[in-house]
């Protein structure tokens, strides 16, 4: 009989546990008025995407600090719960589930990279909670994108901007395309090949290179491209590839103009390419050189200037693109929350984000609709030229 009694004890113990819990469950319902609004954030603060995740976190924390100091949303403070996904999809998914099921957040922000973002999209879509992401991969918007919104410009906007520049400002026809075979580069290649015809351009040669290709291999790629006699070389990739290409072109005396992608819109490119960076032209958000392209006193200028000053004051560093993405992401959610009300459900909040029109952010002016969850247009980008290792607007 010993075993039976043991079983009986187990049953009773289990029942006790359950009943105890239902009691605590009731108690939890008494909550203070003006409860905080919870927003979950998943970033890559370590791992490969660390340079992206850190400024994103800084910007989000600073934004929320300022918002709460000004009374939050209709008196409700905003609480952001930030988790690190270590640039790992699996960890991002786990963090998203915890935020959604344990913390019951009303919206998610994240992540820095495309892989982790896709994992988060999965969970947000399952549960019907809006996700504002800061990664640019085209496949994020593939399939069901009902619950996902994006802040950075994508290959589509940047590609159209660069092609328009090549066709209208440079007035050439034959384009040689060099792209990284990683997701960033193949996104760009797809856009360039699909859109070139519409700008009256012809891609005469297109060659993929590996992210870790050496200088010798790059030479081979360059030789292959040059045999097709392009009038301009378009390079779609993130560092260090584009910098190596710029250097090799200078060394080999290739005089064809070099147009890059928005993937080289950071100081690293100038550091890596050195002298060879001069003369390189690429599309970038206006924030990069806002004091040179925007009219002082305009809404966009003042918005970015305010962000720039606040960020410098708090962290002692200049703003960068990724801090801008973080600033935009939290801005988009909180602006929609102000309209939807502090007790909006995730579904109501999503509908409100979709109604976002003419919202000035750091990356440009956001206009979402049920068909477009990217929000930006090619007009939000400017063509930048590197002159004397500095960014300058391209003169028309």
């Amino acid at each position, binding site marked *: 009989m010993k*075993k*039976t009694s*043991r*079983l009986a004890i*187990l*049953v009773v113990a*289990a029942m006790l*546990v*359950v009943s105890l*819990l239902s009691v*605590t469950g009731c108690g939890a319902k008494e909550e203070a008025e003006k409860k905080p609004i919870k927003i979950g954030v998943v970033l890559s603060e370590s791992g490969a995407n660390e340079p992206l995740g850190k400024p994103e976190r800084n910007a989000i924390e600073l934004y929320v600090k300022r918002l709460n100091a000004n009374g939050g949303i209709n008196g409700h403070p905003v609480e952001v719960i930030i988790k690190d996904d270590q640039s790992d*999809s699996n960890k991002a*998914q*786990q963090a998203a*589930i*915890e935020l*959604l*099921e*344990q913390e*019951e957040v009303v919206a998610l922000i994240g992540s820095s990279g495309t892989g982790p973002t*896709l*994992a988060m999209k*999965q*969970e947000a879509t*399952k*549960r*019907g909670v809006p996700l504002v992401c800061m990664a640019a991969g085209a*496949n994020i918007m*593939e*399939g*069901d994108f009902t619950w996902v919104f994006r802040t950075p410009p994508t290959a589509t906007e940047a590609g159209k901007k660069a092609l328009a520049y090549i066709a209208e400002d440079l007035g050439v026809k034959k384009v040689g395309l060099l792209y990284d075979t990683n*997701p960033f580069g193949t996104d760009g290649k797809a856009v360039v090949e699909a859109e070139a015809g519409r700008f009256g351009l012809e891609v005469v040669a297109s060659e993929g290179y590996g992210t870790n290709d050496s200088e010798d291999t790059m030479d081979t790629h360059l030789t292959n491209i040059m045999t097709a006699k392009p009038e301009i070389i378009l390079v779609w990739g993130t560092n260090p590839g584009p910098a190596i290409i710029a250097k090799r072109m200078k060394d080999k005396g290739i005089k064809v103009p070099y147009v890059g992608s928005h993937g080289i819109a950071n100081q690293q490119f100038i550091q890596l390419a050195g002298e060879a960076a001069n003369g390189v032209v690429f599309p970038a958000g206006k924030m990069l050189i806002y004091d040179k392209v925007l009219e002082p006193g305009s809404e966009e200028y003042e918005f970015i200037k305010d962000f720039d000053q606040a960020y410098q004051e708090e962290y002692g560093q200049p703003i960068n693109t990724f801090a801008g993405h973080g600033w935009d992401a939290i801005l988009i959610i909180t602006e929609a929350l102000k309209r939807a009300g502090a007790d909006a459900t995730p579904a109501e909040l999503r509908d409100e984000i979709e109604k976002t029109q003419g919202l000035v952010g750091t990356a440009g002016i956001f206009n979402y609709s049920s068909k477009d969850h990217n929000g930006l247009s090619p007009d939000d980008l400017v063509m930048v030229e590197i002159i004397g290792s500095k960014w300058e607007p391209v003169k028309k």
Partner: protein
Amino acid sequence: MGEMRNEKRGDETDGGPRLKTSLIRSALSLARRHLVFLSLMLFIIVMPFWAKPLSRPLGIPLVMVMRMVGIYTIVAVGLNMLMGYAGQVSLGHGAFFGIGAYTSAILTVKAHFPPWLGIVMAVLVTIVFGFLVAPVLRLKGHYLAMATLGVGIVAFVFMREMTWLTGGNDGIRNIPALSLPGIRIGEARDYLRAEYYFIWVIALLVLLLSSNLVRSRLGRAMRALHQSEVAAEVMGVDVSWEKIKVFVLSTALAGLAGGIFAHVQGYIDPNLFTIVLSIQLVTMVVVGGMESIWGAVAGAGVITFIPKIVEALPKWLGEVPRWVEKYSNYEGMVFGFILIVTMVFMPAGITRGLSDMVRYRRSPFVNPFRRKAMG
């Protein structure tokens, strides 16, 4: 052997005067015979209710981890039958798990199969692959281990290189969530719990069927050929056919678990199904205890929880010392340490060790420094 088998079948000799009492009696004796199963079932049912308040202070998402334990349990039970009962080592089960996952993912994403049908197909496809691979069972001991290792590597290379089908290194994204015909599993905030129950209903069924199976004719044949293939053959066991049967059964279970995994995970890529997974699965069986269906559950639990506990350690202890952090893979260190300790002190696995402790009231630990301690 599993601890259940030694129990007597209750003492229902005198048969109660009324039907009611006899029903209660038989129900009680049934309950007694399945004590382990029932308490596991109770635990599984109740667990999510107290998981929520416990998870945050612990720093371990309990339901999430238990969901993975359920998936691994399904594989480990199959592998346990193959390794523990039939004595055939397989270092390729991670690949079969992967084949199951890819089958269901490809069929649901590209051919728009409903998830439940994808999972059924995953089982069928892994059965086919199981039969194709079965000839390696003619090998014995470490030759067999090496051959199955090769199977695992070949499968991994195919997953990575057949880009048109598997998406290559990028894998497959946007795999639909679990569902049954006409029913969406889980709503809004309770998705995790719904998936958890779905997985454990299947895992408990697998456990129940397997614990009956190992006591059946096939089970006896398996144990016979584990002891001596020649002796088994002499006794009339069709050795090669029995081996193929148990191998295919275990691959089918790996495929089932893999299929479910794909829908829970939502995205898969080849790196989820490397040789490391195969080794982890074998470790589950060994740590849990060979020749014990319940050992598979315990092994799956221990191996799944260890990395989570190690990850949460800094939260409990404050900061991790610098020199530990430097070896960023200290998860692996703890993992290896526990493996060594289990193997040295509890060579029959933790279930057997602990159940012996209860039954014979003796320490489960073997003294490795005593001569002949390991028998």
